[in-house]
């Protein structure tokens, strides 16, 4: 693959154990710039453990996770220094929580929520910060008039879109999403998915989306990992896996969705 882009994130035989209990193990993949990878499985399959390990919240029991930074260096995200890690999280990476309350500061306005990452990297012009915040609120279809309102006054769908704006304002290249549409009404889910797909395409983002909802990955993901009991049982292009699942568990997963 000489001349091809380098992976933005690499998992090399990653495992995380909770004591003797297996969270996940033997997970390896390369994620390339602009690529969206879905991780599916039922609850307890290890997909959230994997996401936390990839994001650096959990320390891998075995294996390593490397990423390419903006300056094209390859770093092991579990051994870099704390200042480097914080910078990476603020500038290059983003994390969208299932519950927007976990990803927002509920006690400050929407504008401050969007502006925080800008201020954290040194922006000191109130007017500039505010206009960038307004721009991002509009991009995620939040009325700019609501910029000074607390997130608590927002609906669930608006909170989730605000969380996305807060994450994307510094132009990250890799976004981690944990059940981004969980807990939302079906109609609101559809709108959010549409928005996410547009943003990912327009900005050329790489993403890892963890979900139990196959509709989400069908719409967003190029590739899939199917997880069961902490292991990847099948991987491949999304359409391939969903239309012609090979592993019995994948077949069960797909058919159970089709039945409902």
């Amino acid at each position: 693959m000489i001349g091809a882009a380098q992976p933005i994130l690499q998992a090399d035989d990653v495992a995380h154990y909770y004591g003797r209990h297996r969270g996940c193990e033997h997970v390896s993949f390369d994620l390339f710039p602009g690529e969206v990878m879905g991780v599916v499985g039922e609850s307890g399959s290890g997909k959230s453990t994997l996401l936390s390990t990839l994001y650096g919240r959990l320390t891998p029991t075995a294996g390593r996770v490397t990423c390419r930074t903006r300056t094209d260096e390859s770093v092991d995200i579990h051994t870099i220094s704390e200042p480097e890690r914080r910078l990476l999280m603020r500038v290059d990476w983003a994390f969208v929580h299932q519950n927007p309350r976990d990803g927002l500061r509920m006690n400050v306005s929407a504008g401050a929520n969007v502006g925080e990452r800008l201020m954290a990297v040194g922006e000191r012009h109130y007017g500039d910060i505010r206009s960038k915040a307004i721009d991002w609120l509009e991009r995620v279809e939040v009325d700019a008039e609501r910029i000074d309102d607390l997130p608590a006054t927002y609906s669930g769908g608006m909170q989730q879109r605000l969380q996305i704006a807060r994450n994307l304002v510094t132009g990250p290249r890799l976004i981690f999403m944990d059940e981004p549409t969980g807990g939302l009404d079906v109609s609101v889910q559809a709108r959010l998915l549409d928005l996410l797909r547009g943003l990912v395409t327009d900005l050329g983002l790489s993403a890892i989306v963890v979900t139990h909802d196959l509709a989400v990955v069908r719409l967003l993901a190029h590739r899939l990992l199917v997880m069961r009991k902490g292991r990847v049982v099948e991987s491949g292009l999304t359409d391939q896996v969903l239309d012609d699942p090979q592993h019995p568990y994948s077949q069960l997963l797909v058919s159970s969705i089709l039945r409902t």
Partner: protein
Amino acid sequence: MSQPSETQGAWDPSYNFAFLDEQTKRMIRRAILKAVAIPGYQAPFASREMPMPYGWGTGGIQVTAGVIGPDDVLKVIDQGSDDTTNAISIRKFFVRTTGVRTTESTGDASIIQTRHRIPESPLREDQILVYQVPIPEPLRFLEPRETETRQMHALEDYGLMHVKLYEDIARHGHIATSYAYPVKVAGRYVMDPSPTPKFDNPKMDRCPALQLFGAGREKRIYAIPPYTEVKSLDFDDYPFELPTWDAACALCGDTHSFLDEVILDDAGGRMFVCSDTDHCRERRANGHVGPAAAAAPFETMSAAP
């Protein structure tokens, strides 16, 4: 007007000089040296129980006890005044435990212990200003956990501080922090100036005197060495602003000092007078006369229009 009172007390020899034992004073001095070496950094120290309650100035008292010598001249103020009860109590404590001379005159003092104010008259190189500090951590009310705030200081991770200022402007149109207004010291550490009004912040910048801050209950000492840059946090397009009064001091006529509001009756009558009582006394001694002092008895001023 009265002259600044100056007293020479008697040291009660049943106490060690400045109350604390010599080992404790050395420990405090080591913390002070560390604090001076890293301007704005909160140096931990093994604060002692003092005969006054926590929150009543135990940090400032320990710092003063650590630096005071028999030749020092001590001034103690609270709210800018030498005659508030806690200032009296602390001054008496040091008279009894050191026998040093005390003064109400800012110019005559070599050590000034203060709560909530910085004297109006400029300080000199041969003076030390000791602040009493209740909560030394400027990030505390944004992030309650010490382990987290310590790391934020270490990594210079101060974005959260500006979130607060942003929020003020978004809600109020200006930065709505009127006291304990955060500053950046020597371009590095964000520091709480103690609950002094922001009016006093510019006095800290490049001040010739050594400024020491003691927080007894929280067990921290921090410092601003002489001639150190102290910058109040702000935005490029919303710069730090000083508060102004419509009124002048009723007694000395000053329009540039921090004014306390004094309620004169229950019908809304009030007047404004200098918070710094020594500054006001000195001005009056030099012939300045305010609107109320010119008349006797006082005429009440109505509230500012």
